[in-house]
């Protein structure tokens, strides 16, 4: 039950490029990545596209399909109207390398700046104890497959290249939130989230949540709780006063010990 699909695929590199028309035969049940592979195998052997698992688990095949950031392997052709032209472009927030491949190194640089997990010492018998309810919040964030769709859709950097050095992006707010909520972590990263990760630049317009292929509630469960934690630390006049009085702000941030249960 094959049929012909009309596609426009952006081809080019940093020096320029254009949407190129392809007509490709596709089958029922196929996804956009299948169509791209068929173009590769039969019409344009050098069409550059990243992919790995083809099952929505690795987050490699991030592209923009009809203008929306999506995984090509999880976008079924049946979601388009009959006769609709499917337009595929590279991610528009990152420098293009070639065709559908972009340079996502920005994300890896940000990752290096997140202070790593710093656990309590292990108990005498060597086995940490954590309750399921305490790990579940972090587990949601660790579902992240690093497809960087949330990063590419985020207007803070998508529309403002100059914000990149001072903004970590939704994927890394997830990471901050995960560590802040980790039952064993001993660091306080709230000031870093404000100062270095630029969480204040986020205006919670929720596009990251809209595009997340893992359905992680990035805004509600990670970014807003982080903003609230930052408010606790830096903007809440009452806690600010408390810190002044108890001279807790004399300590460097990473060493501020947590009060139990806080």
């Amino acid at each position, binding site marked *: 039950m094959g049929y012909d699909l009309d596609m426009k695929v952006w081809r080019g590199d940093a020096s320029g490029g254009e949407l190129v028309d392809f007509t490709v035969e596709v089958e029922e*049940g196929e996804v956009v990545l299948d169509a791209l592979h068929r173009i590769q*195998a039969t019409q344009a052997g050098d069409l550059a596209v*990243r992919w790995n698992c083809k099952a929505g688990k690795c987050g490699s095949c991030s592209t923009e399909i009809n203008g929306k950031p999506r995984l090509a392997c999880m976008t079924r052709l049946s979601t388009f109207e009959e006769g609709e032209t499917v337009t595929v472009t590279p991610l528009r927030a990152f420098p293009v*390398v070639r065709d559908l491949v972009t340079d996502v190194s920005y994300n*890896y640089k940000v990752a290096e700046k997140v202070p790593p997990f710093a656990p309590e010492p292990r108990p005498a018998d060597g086995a940490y104890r954590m309750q399921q309810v305490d790990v579940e919040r972090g*587990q949601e964030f660790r579902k992240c497959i690093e497809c960087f769709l949330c990063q590419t859709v985020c207007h803070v950097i998508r529309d403002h290249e100059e914000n990149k050095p001072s903004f970590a992006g939704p994927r890394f707010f997830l990471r901050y939130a995960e560590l802040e909520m980790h039952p064993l972590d001993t660091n306080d990263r709230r000031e870093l989230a404000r100062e270095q990760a630029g969480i204040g630049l986020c205006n919670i317009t929720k596009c990251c949540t809209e595009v997340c292929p893992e359905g992680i509630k990035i805004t509600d469960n990670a970014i807003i709780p982080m903003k609230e934690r930052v408010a606790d630390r830096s903007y809440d006049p009452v806690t600010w006063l408390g810190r002044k009085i108890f001279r807790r702000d004399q300590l460097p941030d990473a060493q501020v010990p947590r009060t139990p249960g806080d």
Partner: protein
Amino acid sequence: MTEIERHSFDVLVVGAGGAGLRAAIAAHDAGARVGIVCKSLLGKAHTVMAEGGIAAAMGNVWQEDNWKVHFRDTMRGGKMLNHWRMAQLHAQEAPDRVRELEEWGALFDRTPDGLISQRDFGGHRYARLAHVGDRTGLELIRTLQQRAVALGIDVFMECTVTELVKDGDTATSTDKRVSAGGRIAGAFGYWRESGRFVLFEAPSVVLATGGIGKSYKVTSNSWEYTGDGHALALQSGASLVNMEFVQFHPTGMVWPPSVKGILVTESVRGDGGVLRNSEGRRFMFDYIPEFFKAETADSEDEADRWYEDKTNNRRPPELLPRDEVARAINAEVKAGRGSPHGGVFLDIASRRTPEYIRRRLPSMYHQFKELADVDITAEPMEVGPTCHYVMGGVAVDPDTGESAVPGLYAAGEVAGGMHGANRLGGNSLSDLLVFGRRTGLNAAYAAARLATRPSIDDDVVRAASERALAPFGIEGGENPYGVQQDLQEVMHNLVGIIRREDEMRQALDDLTKFKERIGRLSVEGHRQYNPGWHLAIDLHNMLLVSECIARAALERTESRGGHTRDDFPATDDAWGRLNLHCRLDGDDVAVTREPLPEMPDELRELFG
């Protein structure tokens, strides 16, 4: 020749899946300067596809569990063909390797006491798999990735190694691609992004390149799985062991065609799912082999009781080792009792509540919903065997992971011996951790012990670049995508789950023709991020590995684990004492028989 980009390390790790990252971390901890090279972006390696869990006898759920039970399960699952020492080290060290992950930030599911929870899996006596829902592999790779980043280890992403270079290599071996020199001196590769070449100088190289699944038509593996490490090792003079054993995972998706082969985790069965044929029968009861009869339930009632009470009941036959289940499914489909799209039914919907299924198997739920429009909480899945894992790999010293080539190490799927004739589910993630760490440490120690660093001849580098660029010099040659498709077809049809002598001879004839065809591949475009070119280079590896599988499979005239011969259906004790090793002899693959390493008596007693 223009100056080539060079980097120098004590230890170079090729591959950034679980094994590669764990090796790099260990080598770093041992004081070495470490570089990691990987074909994809960091964190995309095939390890993310591992769903079920990490097998480790921690005894958190069943206190009766210990390394000896795990060792015994592993050896029996591997049909006693495993290297006993690897299986022993693996069972002994896995629990510590899992606990270590927690220290690096992993968040496993918990028991009510707050310990790491463990789940049931095929072939394991006790619930033993530390897990995070059904995305354990992702958790493992992210944890290791974040650890490696925290340690500041250099990662070369989207960079492919095409050749290993040894001390004393000369350019005369150009056309053979076989290296003749002494110790490993480094690796040559190209940046996928720019197509430019790069040379890594390192006295220790750890191969952690994963498997070979892309040689098969229906596979759960991604494009990266082209047997690069296997081929690199062969070309450097190392041998591959157990290459005839290829694991077909019993449950891959079969419909729609575009997702054929994508994995359906064994946890579905571990958590209560059962296999049924088109007549609704739980057919696995008809396929319980003698070897496992004593420990497998023979009635549905007993099998169902087992989930609650493991002491007084035997395991359901759905949780037999993967080779048994894959063969059974294959037989049902051949007998005309398959599902509409050529698989069988995997049903958990009628056995567990929708809430339970969504909580325990979130990514399976998601995968079927999104890709096949199937709600697994309401209807059965259609599944069939898919090429998943190669038990065979580089023959290494069990304790150090070093191959026959000094300075060349292998860990993870690319290493052979650990899993014998068949791998148990969950044992691959623990394998990555245990042997990743061991090879990393030993590679670092060896590099530190060296008085002089090996050197690389410029001519060798030039020859390597010429070989890599060859496809650009040929006009109107073969399309690499077409050749790959044909190769997959041959391996799938002729050296698949069930094998026969005449078919394998046919396959070997075909493979000879492929050797010619890959000599005249041509690619369009230029060197910058050109997948056609990348495939043209990878095809050499795929072909070489395919030949090893076919030759070893032809040689072993019995059926055992991941190797089933239609013409020799029985297991033969004489073969149970032999491993097959593949080596490169000129252009050809030579297969030799070697006796299995002798297991010490105190371990032998465990099988009394």
